[in-house]
């Protein structure tokens, strides 16, 4: 399955996180908010004028900027055997 980044998803798309290529501070924050490889993520909406994204991961809704979303590699759809809590 082709791997892409969170920033390129469209509203309503499901994806599974493959990897996070962020600097340490952002990485830690994303981890604490529930971003982990193998987790399922949904893009809820994108703000106008290239604004931030709203994503849902587990029970948490999170907003992040597109530049930051580009550092999260995802695989569109639900990957077989992905662990869901």
């Amino acid at each position: 399955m082709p791997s892409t980044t969170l920033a390129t998803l469209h509203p309503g798309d499901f994806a599974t996180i493959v990897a996070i290529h962020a600097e340490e501070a952002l990485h830690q924050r994303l981890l604490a908010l529930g971003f982990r490889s193998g987790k399922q993520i949904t893009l809820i909406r994108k703000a106008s004028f290239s604004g931030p994204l709203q994503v849902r991961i587990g029970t948490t809704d999170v907003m992040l900027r597109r530049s930051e979303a580009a550092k999260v590699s995802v695989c569109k759809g639900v990957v077989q055997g992905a662990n869901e809590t």
Partner: protein
Amino acid sequence: MKRIALLGMPNTGKSTLFNRMTGGSARVGNWPGITVELLSGKILLGGDMVEIIDLPGIYDLHGFSDDEQVVRHFLHDNVPDLALVILNTTQIERQMSLLLQLKQLNMNIVVMLNMADEAKKFGITVDAAKMSALLEMPIFLLSAKYGGGYAEAMQAVTKALRYRTPGMAEQLRSQLEQDEHIETEMARVLKHTVQIPAQMSDNLSEKLDRAMLHPWLGLPIFFAVMYLLFQGIFFFGQPLQTGVAALFGWLREAALDPLLAGAPPIVQGLLLDGVYNGVATVAAFIPIIILFFLFMALVEDSGYLSRAAFLMDALMARLGLDGRGFVMLLMGFGCNVPALMGTRVMRSRAMRLLTMLVIPFSLCSARLQVFVFITAALFSPKAAPLVLFSLYLSSFAAAILTALIFKHRFKNNEPFVLELPPYRFPTLRQMALRGWLEVSHFLRRATKFIVAGVVLVWLLTHLPLSATPASADTFAGMIGGFFHPVFAPVGINEQLTIALIFGFVAKEIVIGALAVIYGLSGDALSGAIGQQLDWVQAYSFMLFTLLYTPCLATVATLQNESKQLKFTALSLGWSLALAWLASFAFYQGARALGY
């Protein structure tokens, strides 16, 4: 005295629990090892006084954000007797990581699974007893907002305080490295104790967001909400402010004037026009601050403030700010003081300072009074609205320019990843408590400074005793004369310079000061000003008034909130410089064009 530290992630209702425990008796204070102030309160628990400290919300015990460092340093230098860890039950699947990190520190811990009411609504069930057994620490389900489970939890806290806290602190840092087990441990505990429905069903938030965050409707709704908020604060605030002023006036006439009638004029003036007016100036802010934070609690706790950040981020990110900063900037158009206090929601210090640098350029209601008076004196009724509108535009332009110039100096280095919590209604109690806490904070911190400032300006404009008050022979007049070479190129004469010195205290008194300076009032005053000045000079004076230091209360708040003399000085210096440059450019430009 034993100490309890409240720990948890942001948006867990930690402050709600803190307020429930301390009942509004909290105070800010300094602690060894950290530079920011923390809220703490003392309460009676099981017959002993116990101090409760509200630590900033953190995501991760070894994160790099300002708050995370504060918590680390606090725990290192002030080992609490008990850590009360608050987790949001609806997000327990990820928040448990913080609990497990804390558990490794070998502290005395009691856990509260907060928002139990919301979790139940979402269909999440937690076996607290089993979790308690697995993690070997007391765990309770709680609704800090409504109080469910509170009594039981407090009993456990009282009991836990009887045990001595085990070691910790020294090898804190190295202990924190062992994250590996946390993930497996978390999965194990969650699997046995928590059930989360596959589809989270928060329909209300989904539906509301569909409108509130709509690609086209979102922004108009946002501005409508802001407008209502703004109108609400001033609809209720202005009569209250007038009432407070009337009360102080009445008290003076009825009691203080007769009481001091026999005293020499200098004593009378100093006590009444100096000290008493200073206190009245402070009091005038009370209704506005309370109302502002009543409404802010509504916007913030309902979750709408994060939505505002979402909507405005595209624009604000370019200015080095975020959408919450924009909300505060807008609120600054009412009054700068509570807007500056409200920046506390921004957890990155750099971004907060940048926002605080920008807010004083918001054309507040006090400055509007000056502009309305002068515009009426010098411009035709047709031109007046355009003049006022151009001043609002200048206000925005100054704010944007300031952000662009200083955004590299106050570079935000925290990741901009915010939670969008579900919509919630704060209780009236929560809102009232917030208003009360903020106003008592303001009074404790700003009163002395403002009263001293008012007294100083009174002395400057009334000494030496031989001079006519506010005339050129007073110290203020001398200062005005001294600075004449500076103000002449921007078209501001000596009388207006003295009015600007008054305006440093509060813009509300500028017109009153002009009345004293010219010895005229009302229509006679506006007639005299209209005769003496042409419109270019008057506009230059208004530009200067718009951009330089808003008032003493703002300066006091800048200092209280930043705790940095250097920053306050920068804000003062920059606004004076910008005021002069803008007036200079306008005045000389207009004159060069032949006006």
